[in-house]
């Protein structure tokens, strides 16, 4: 049935991820050990969180190119804050990074929602502005691991009930995003806006307000991810996560989230991220040059787009009278 195509796509993607893991496992059995797989998961968590936020944006027919710059700026804020005040509780540092991200995201949201500017142009602009601000803020200097307090660095990889904090946070993000898109008006409105903006206005959805907060959420998640990134790699510099916005968008596209808006699932975003995470971790294991990684990612994106395009082919207008009921989905 047509209605199951979306679900099918996610099943296929899940199978592909598993097949990829097994295939690499055949060449290098080390890769499928629980510890190694745990590493892959931990490595994918930031991508998962960012892809989920990006999904919300893409579903509204938008795009947020500024996530990586927001991440870098908030990561730098967190690192400099912790370096200057080693006694500050970690919660305050994380909150600072998150709030900074939210504010940066809301700037995008205000320009796109209330001023009705095209998302790609606005976030292309803020992408450069935020990246520039990292340099202004830090003066181009690095914050190295010895300048950061120990608990600041330790948090992401500390474990709770056998899983790293990163994995727990990603799990929380998945749950929140699933609940938000499925069970709240806010989330459903995003889909309605992406499906048919004119119709959404018709049924009284406050489009500007919804977009404002959607970009806010995207920035907020990027802000939190900024701290996690800096702490995880124990270094903050101006080029952190350079170009990562495209990895995030790639994860969404591979996960079947339609760039045309209106369609996408949490499972798709997660699986798309995992797919890229597995490729990134597996290729070095089987001794494939990292340059192939980028080419392979590109091929997967093209394949995903091809599949989506074939699913959405439409015929012309129905002018000739129909002589029987076209029962699309009588079950």
């Amino acid at each position, binding site marked *: 049935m*047509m*209605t199951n195509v979306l679900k099918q796509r996610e099943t296929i993607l899940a199978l592909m991820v598993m097949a990829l893991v097994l295939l690499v496992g055949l060449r290098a059995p080390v890769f499928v050990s629980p510890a190694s797989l745990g590493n892959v998961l931990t490595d994918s968590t930031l991508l998962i969180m960012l892809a989920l936020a990006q999904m919300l944006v893409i579903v509204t027919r938008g795009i947020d190119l500024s996530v990586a710059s927001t991440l870098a700026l908030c990561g730098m804020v967190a690192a400099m804050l912790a370096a200057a005040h080693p006694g500050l509780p970690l919660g305050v540092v994380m909150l600072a990074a998150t709030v900074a991200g939210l504010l940066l995201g809301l700037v995008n949201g205000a320009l796109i929602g209330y001023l009705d500017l095209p998302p790609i142009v606005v976030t292309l602009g803020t992408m450069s502005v935020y990246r520039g601000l990292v340099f202004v803020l830090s003066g181009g200097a690095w914050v190295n691991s010895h300048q950061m307090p120990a608990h600041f660095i330790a948090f992401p990889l500390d474990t709770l009930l056998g899983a790293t904090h990163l994995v727990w946070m990603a799990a929380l993000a998945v749950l929140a995003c699933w609940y938000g898109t*499925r*069970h*709240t*008006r806010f989330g*459903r*409105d995003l*889909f*309605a806006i992406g*499906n*048919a903006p004119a*119709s*959404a*206005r*018709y*049924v*009284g*959805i406050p489009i500007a307000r919804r977009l404002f907060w959607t970009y806010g959420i995207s920035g907020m998640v990027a802000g939190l991810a900024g701290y996690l990134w800096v702490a995880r790699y124990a270094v903050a510099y101006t080029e952190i996560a350079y170009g990562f916005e495209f990895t995030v968008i790639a994860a969404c596209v591979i996960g079947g989230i339609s760039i045309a808006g*209106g*369609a996408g699932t949490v499972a798709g975003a997660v699986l798309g991220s995992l797919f890229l995470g597995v490729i990134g971790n597996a290729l070095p294991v089987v001794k494939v040059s990292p340059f192939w990684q980028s080419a392979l990612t590109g091929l997967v994106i093209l394949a995903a787009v091809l599949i989506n395009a074939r699913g959405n082919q439409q*015929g*012309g*207008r*129905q*002018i*000739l*009278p*129909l*002589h*029987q*009921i*076209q*029962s*699309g*989905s*009588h*079950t």
Partner: protein
Amino acid sequence: MQVNNAGALSKAAPVLEMRGICKRFAGIVALNEVALTVRAGEVMALLGENGAGKSTLVKTLTGIYQPDGGSILLDGRQVVFHGPQQAMRQGITAVHQETVMFDELTVAENIFVGRQPCTGKAGRIDWKRIEEEAEKLFARLEVAIPVRARVRDLSVAQRHFVEIARALSQDAKVVILDEPTASLSQREIMELYRIIGQLKEAGTAIIFISHKFDEIFTVADRYTVLRDGRFVADGAMADITEPQLVALMVGRAVHQAYPKANVAPGGPLLEVDGFCHPTEFDSVSFTLRKGEILGFYGLVGAGRSEVMQALFGLTPNVRGSVKIDGAPVRITCPDDAVKHGIAYVPEDRQHHGAHLSMPILHNMTLPVLDRLGFFLRRQRRRETTLARHFAQQLELKAHHLMQNVSELSGGNQQKVVLGKWLATNPRVIILDEPTKGIDIGSKAAVHRFISRLVEQGLSVILVSSELPEVLGLSDRVMVMHHGRMVREFSRHEATPESVVAAASGIAEAKEAA
């Protein structure tokens, strides 16, 4: 005619009353003192030719347009709608051909989108209730639509039913059905009639827009006729006959002076035989003679533009044969068509016809750049000469040739598009609604120009929804209905009544010729 004479029904107070509605667009009057009254449990047929103002009136009623004058009374209270959702909230819903639908969402969600019932403080959407209510609505309408299906998988008829269900769920007082049967099968139409009956019983007022007279006489209780944006007449269906309605709609003799060129058409130039498309048109055949103006008339959406686009090589999956000068030709892309001397001036000037952000000069020479030698500076003069030649011929009003097309008026933009295609030296020029939305002065210039074209030996296919234009200019008129060619009229046998009747699908209309 019979004004406010609706028999027993008129006892009820009107649910909706529109008085003296006026609407202008950039100086063009679209609605002038239009009045419309609908009572509870009554079906009002809104009638008029293409461009009579029906759609504008509906858009005014549903809050998409704000009227420039007049008042709307709902249940005797004056209301002003600033936006469509306001009209919807107050109980006025329209079921359009361009439906308010969210393809990726489920049927149930489509009915409640934007106002989903929630439970608890957290505002969790009550999916169970949404689906139950949706099922109840469909049970009430007695149609079987799975509420969890995605709307993209539904047929056109099922989409209409979803919209009607949405209207019901909002306790709509007035439901506007805008050509609801346009793409429905006979069985689906019967189902729609049954639902209209239910709505009537429930006391809903219905405005029914249709071009099909058999339908109107089946479902409507009363009628209102518009013509050229003005109210013409209203009354009870029981008191009027089909020819009388047609006369009210057409209403005018074609007395405008159309500069019909005195050219006797020669032998056949373009022969189209058995043109078919899977969904858009079927077995369309016609012959265009040298120096002839062949008019194509039909209701909006009858498939005329689609045939022309197919002829110009824009549409895939077309079967049938095309001959030029008796020799078969294959046209699979517009480039082929241009090579064979066919030019197509599309209906949507802003999007398909002109490059608005480019200057007049570059617009005009775009299809013939290869002939001009683009990069050589000396050829610039030839480019200018060519553009100036057509600008003068077309009486183009512009400051200079480097002016952007976006700065011109609609009529002058159209002249640029015409000039652009004439520069390709076509033998056949297809004009799709060449005077749509342009002012009277430019219209006359375009008409004069069309006549001059045939004098110069070109053949013209004129697709137009303006009856006087088609009748005034054409040597022959082909009428299409529902993707099929229904009749061919020669110039002297084409009367407004007979052409409109054929276009409305009235079988064997009595000819008043």
